[in-house]
């Protein structure tokens, strides 16, 4: 580990990079530190109680985990399709699937209204099946978070499917295993680390989702008010209370980084 660092030093540090690097660190670290400094620690319990933080955290966890489950269920097969099938127009499909990655999430919210809203293009069939409309309901925020977060999983897993060793799959085929059995017993275990990484990235994105969730969810306490949308409400009412709400999300970010360190950051750092 230390050997790697020494090797990376090379002919010495060019002074040119130091000031921007220091400013860069400050730019990223100071706001996070400021949250911790400005959190009214003595009133933390009262704020969490009074502002409905626990309820919002529950809604956040439930919706983001649902969105992640949906993303894994649909996204892994989709990733395989994009990686392995050779069909005309598949490049177009890949572009469509990755659009939400670069789209501002609030536009995702507008798009969801146009698609699944009461007056959306699929609004009437949805009402016929469910007997109710989707916007401003819990399922709507799960859909919003899935729309924004699933692409992270798809592109992560797709790359793994591409580079997975096909020799093992072929060996399984010569031994008489069915295609579905090979997919479940051979291919999936090969890409398991990528699925884990993609799942964590997807979940982190879903948990932090704000724009689409706010728009199609309506920020109603107890059903569609997540921790990020609660932050907006609290900040508008009393900004001094808002930093306290960042703590659970910072804690999640640290846990995610801790998990990723082994599976992702280290290979990148050593390459």
């Amino acid at each position, binding site marked *: 580990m230390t050997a790697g660092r020494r090797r990376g030093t090379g002919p010495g540090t060019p002074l040119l990079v130091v000031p921007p690097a220091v400013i860069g660190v400050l730019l990223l670290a100071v706001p996070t530190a400021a949250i911790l400094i400005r959190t009214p620690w003595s009133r933390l319990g009262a704020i969490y109680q009074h502002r409905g933080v626990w309820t919002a955290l529950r809604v956040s966890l439930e919706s983001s985990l649902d969105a992640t489950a949906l993303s894994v269920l649909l996204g892994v097969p989709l990733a395989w399709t994009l990686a392995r099938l050779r069909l005309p127009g598949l490049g177009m499909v890949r572009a469509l699937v990755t659009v939400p990655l670069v789209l501002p999430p609030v536009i995702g919210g507008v798009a969801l*209204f146009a698609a699944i*809203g*009461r*007056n959306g293009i699929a609004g009437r069939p949805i009402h016929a099946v469910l007997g*109710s*409309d989707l*916007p*401003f*309901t819990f399922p709507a925020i799960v859909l919003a978070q899935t729309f924004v977060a699933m692409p992270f999983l798809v592109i992560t897993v797709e790359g793994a499917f591409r580079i997975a060793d096909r020799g093992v799959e072929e060996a399984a085929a010569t031994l008489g295993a069915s295609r579905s059995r090979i997919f479940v017993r051979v291919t999936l275990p090969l890409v398991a680390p990528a699925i884990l990484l993609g799942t964590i990235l997807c979940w982190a994105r879903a948990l932090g989702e704000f724009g689409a969730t706010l728009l199609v*969810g*309506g*920020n*109603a*306490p*107890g059903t*569609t*008010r997540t921790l990020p949308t609660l932050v*907006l*409400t609290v*900040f*508008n*009412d009393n*900004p001094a209370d808002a930093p306290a709400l960042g703590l659970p999300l910072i804690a999640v970010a640290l846990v995610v980084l801790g998990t990723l360190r082994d599976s992702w950051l280290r290979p990148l750092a050593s390459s």
Partner: protein
Amino acid sequence: MKRAVVTVAVMAALAACSSSGGGAKGSGKLSGSITVDAAASLTEAFTALKASFEKAYPGTTVTLNFGASSELATQIQQGKAADVFASASTKNMTQLGASAGAPVDFAKNRAEIAVPPANPGKIAAVADLAKPGLKVALCDPAVPCGVVARQVLANAKVSVTPAASLADVKSTLAAVESGEVDAGVVYVTDVRAAGNKVKGIEIPDAVNASTTYPIGTLKDAKNPSLARAWVDYVRSAVGQKVLQADGFALP
């Protein structure tokens, strides 16, 4: 036509500035620009007043910025540059304390139920908002229209769990306009401004609630004289006529 007149006036003002070597300061003539932060419910009235104000004081520019009063007050407290603040409640003006100089009340607004034109929820009175399966949008309790809406519901002894709790009155109106909710509680002025895009269900005076709008120049105003002129204009006969035409009442 109106635009052409304004353009000519602006060009004349610019020419005057450049020939005199800059600045009409000290002459007592109003010039320059101001930023007015105003409650979302003032959108139509202030937009109309901006046009006539700029015509009355050639060479001046008024930049309007609308939002939830609570949000605007917070932004001003956090150092956002603005010259005038017009709030939909006394609470959010008081929140600014000494940074708002001597605010005065200039209008009053009452609540009204807005429903999509076809009235899919068949709403006729406040009590109907509690019907099961109905989707109702309210403003968040932190913003003035949310306070007024909850006061109305309390007066009518009706319990409503909102499907959406939105950031300002125009968002609540938009949820109704889009047809995604069956009803929303907004201001009388919003129903009027929306024209035939929504249908208004009047709330009887016995259960209705109102909110008072204060306006004040800000201590950190970059153009205090023009800011003062805007406040005076809003409170003038012209200003009050425009506000009343939009459905506002006198304070």
